[in-house]
């Protein structure tokens, strides 16, 4: 099948921070467990499973009373045009779909967390319970079924919208232009144009005032975390060898890697 390029956009200005999107993402992922993994709804809805919140909230506060800024930024996969996570994944578990969505194949993921380390936006989250890494899928299944993403459909105030890329971009630019005029400062659509060479354009865009770009976690020059991060060569070495086998014997591979990567995974235990 062939699909159009799709996109999602989050508008910080019309967002009323009701978190309906965040909850909707979380419930949708629980529904997916139920749908795809025979998990009962009774169980999926009442277990903590924090890694299923693919849309995360990060509150930052700056300044001194009473001149204080307080912003709850949303962290989610940006669906980079050049997904560093995909490049590095030793198990070939990550793919960029025709819609623009960058998706981790959970069956193939070996939990090495290489994607987490290189992601310029610190997006993927490792779950100690399942031994796998998770992130926003741009609701690939919903988009290809002609539905909006679960975050967009939840938004009571049209602050997240999804659809064909050119439509999303044109609406987003219209809004940014309007805000720039009304509020007399520059608003931009982060990700509509190439951000930098590392990530390229983004399929999940954000409308925000330029002056608040850091508060909303929208760096001007995002850099891949390969050099920083933890020491991962060892893990990758192990995982790459067995990576090809992952699709057929996902669980066995995952156990093997977990053993060899034990120490390296420790620092994530508090997540």
């Amino acid at each position, binding site marked *: *099948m062939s699909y159009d390029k799709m996109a999602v956009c989050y508008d910080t200005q019309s967002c009323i921070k009701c978190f309906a999107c965040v909850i*909707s993402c979380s419930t949708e992922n629980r529904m997916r467990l139920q749908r795809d993994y025979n998990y009962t709804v009774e169980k999926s809805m009442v277990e903590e499973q924090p890694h299923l919140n693919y849309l995360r909230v990060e509150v930052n506060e700056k300044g001194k009373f009473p001149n204080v800024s307080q912003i709850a930024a949303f962290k989610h996969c940006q669906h980079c045009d050049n997904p560093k996570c995909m490049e590095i994944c030793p198990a070939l578990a990550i793919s960029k779909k025709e819609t623009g969505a960058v998706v981790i194949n959970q069956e193939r993921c070996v939990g090495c967390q290489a994607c987490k380390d290189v992601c310029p936006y610190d997006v993927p989250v490792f779950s100690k319970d399942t031994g796998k890494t998770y992130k926003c899928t741009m609701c690939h299944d919903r988009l290809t079924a*002609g539905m909006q993403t679960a975050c967009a459909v939840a938004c009571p105030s049209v602050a997240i919208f999804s659809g064909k890329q050119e439509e999303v971009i044109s609406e987003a630019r219209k809004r940014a232009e309007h805000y720039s005029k009304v509020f007399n400062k520059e608003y931009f659509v982060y990700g509509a144009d190439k951000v930098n060479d590392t990530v390229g354009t983004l399929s999940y865009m954000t409308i925000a005032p330029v002056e608040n770009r850091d508060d909303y976690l929208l760096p001007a020059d995002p850099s891949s975390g390969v050099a920083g991060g933890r020491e991962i060569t060892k893990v990758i070495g192990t995982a790459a060898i067995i990576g090809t086998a992952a699709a057929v014997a996902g669980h066995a591979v995952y156990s093997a890697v977990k053993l060899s990567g034990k120490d390296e995974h420790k620092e994530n235990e508090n997540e």
Partner: protein
Amino acid sequence: MKLTRRNFMKTSVAGLAGAAVFTGSPLKTEAREITSADFGVENKTYLTCRMCAQNCPMVAYTRDGRLVRLDANPNTPYPSICGRGRAATAALYDPQRIKTPLIRTGKRGSGEFRSASWNEALDLIGNKMLQLREEGEPHSVAYFPRFNSASLLDDTIFNLYGTDNLFSYGDTCFGSTNQLGLGSVFGGGGEEPRQGNSSVMGDYENAKLAVLIGRNPVGGLVAFPWGGMFGRGRKNGMKTVLVDPKKSLGVGETDTEWLPVIPGGDVAFLVGLAGELFKNKYYDEEFLKEYTNADMLINAETLQPVYLQEGDDENDPDYQVYDTATNSAVMKSEAESPALYGEYNVDGVKAKTALQMLIDSCNAFPIEKAAEKSGISVEQIQKLAKDLNDTRPACFLERGYRATRYYNSLHEKQLISVINGLLGVYGRKGGLIYGRYAYLYSPFDYSDSNEISVNMWYKENVEGFELCDPYNMRRTFPLAVETEEPYKLRMAFLNGQNPVGGSVGGHKMAKALEKMEMVAAISPFWNESLLYADVILPDTTFLERSEPLFGQYKATFPVITVHDQVIDPMFETRNGYWIMLAIAKRIFSDDEYYSYFGDFEAGGVKYIVDYQLENLELDEADAAIFSRRKLIEDGVWCGVPAPVKPMNKPTPSGKLEVYSLFMAKWHEELLNQGRENDAKYFDPLFSCPPTYYQTLKEKLDNDEFVPITGFSPLSSFTGAQTRNNILLRNVGAKLNYSAVFINTDRGNALGLKSGDLIEIFNIEEPSLVVKAEVQLSETVEPHTLFSFYGVGNGLYRKLADKLSVASPIGFNPNHIGNLNFMPVEASAPSQDFIVKIRRAK
């Protein structure tokens, strides 16, 4: 503009631009297959959300009898349900729900219960009620309804049984303060002008500036339609100004101004703001002349109108004005050019126009003083006044919600309504527009022959309760229990209400419950009050029951919704109708039972719905487009928006009363009774009566704060449907929503850092000590100790085992607040006290 159904749907699509454009299929070529994403063929059920009290229209999808998805009902102009609504599945499947009937085994408050059969539990309750009725004291049963799962039927059963003692929760929220605050300006017919929360609403979508004072539309979120309207307003470029002791996220993070008001300093701020409006003539003279009583001549000594001709069926009211055409005082109806300003001698009486009175009262209170008392700087007040002038009439001051906070809250609400009148925003595009409703009626009988209710008795007999709203008041319960006046209360019946957690002075509620011969309760979840129950009956959640049609929406157009059962009741729970009928069978004779409820028993909820539809009352324009089929097929029906034009209201003067004659009358009456202190709160002029806590102390000590509480969009009231909800907590934890927030510098001065555990107590109730985690933040006004409402288990630590997802500690000011009452209108000043904090041992 008249909107037909088709037009209406068109507008709604336009309103939805963002969403509607983007639903197209992404497929280039092939026809789309049914995929697992939409679960193939779904069963759809329409219902309304009860995660809070707003009944937002929802749709549920089920597969194999299991709930798989919840969404906003798309068939309204503002399809919205919030995060709490979306997290309803976690409440439904919460393993800590009350699963069977329970009977208390330990002492009251201990939380020890055993499970029982339905028959045993119902017989216990039924027998007690029978006994009380046989002893001639059915009125000794106090009924506490809320989140009701047997609406319309439940009050009827208690009323027919013989008690009018219905203790409702509105005294904290929408009861007297808010009703009279707007009613005093708007009128409401009768002696006590009351207006509901939704009689006027901000036209957010078209507003250029919204001043949110005493209300954060996102914190206390009403998703449908307010959340949708507010967000669209932001999208359209509306600026927001937040007047609140706590800066909050939802009103906008950028391009919004925060005016951090000292708790209870709102009144001083409003007086300062009005002074600026007057000084610069930043008000709408034309509007004042045409629609308000600004030109009314007022006796400057008595504050009463010089001459008022009351209206009757034939004639509109009329009053004396000063006609500048003839330079004489004449009736308004005869005046050519009534003066808006000036002082006149009318037959030896020193008279001023109402507007002049208002102006002069502000002059007596300079802006510097307003700044000092409110904590909001002179420059900020001046800037806001100017911004309002630049944007009017597409601006407004929100008049608040959960309105009763401090002793001066009624005056605050009145001043807000007056200032909106000065700005001329009533009935104007982008200003405040009027609500419209559909009226639904109940098929059940009522009995008028019962003993007077406790609340009515208080209203008629007790000083300080004259203006209370006897139908929305519950905090008289502990008073009546203690004094046994007007009679002894012997049994309490809690139906979905949590008076211990939900009303300020909760500990006194608990004590009163302890004195009951029996406490019966119906609830799907645990809460503070249930710890004091003898018998608990497990209710269904809103997803497991059908309900009658609902029509009380806070919308500018009438809305009617359908509520059908989504899944079968879980565990041994039963829906409220089943439970109420089972009780009715036990307390009424067969003849009574069948004559009252026979039809309902045979027809079920459908019998009520049929009656509601047959007796549906709509405006003509709405009636013309109403379709029963559409309502059933769409799960919701929306009528025609209220016309955008100023309307005169039934006030004594027949005008919008920027000078409130209701207040003037009570002011005089209270003075005549020698009640100067009470009279201060009923001033028709701009003045600054103190809060209760300010009468306790001039200045707070280093370790003292005023306990402000506000809603978070992740919690609601004190129900465990949100409190014990893992999906909500996952997100709430990121906001540290179970902590108490204090200003960083003040915390530092006490040697505290974020994450420290502190103890909190009311300086008037030092024995009740609550533990909480502290979070230092620059987003808190320094006098303030802020907590999100209804998050932690607070004083009632016994709940920790029963609600293990909820924070075991945390602060709910209600638990330790005072049982005092607003002057004369007697609602609940929910945060008007002083707490001390200390590091926890």
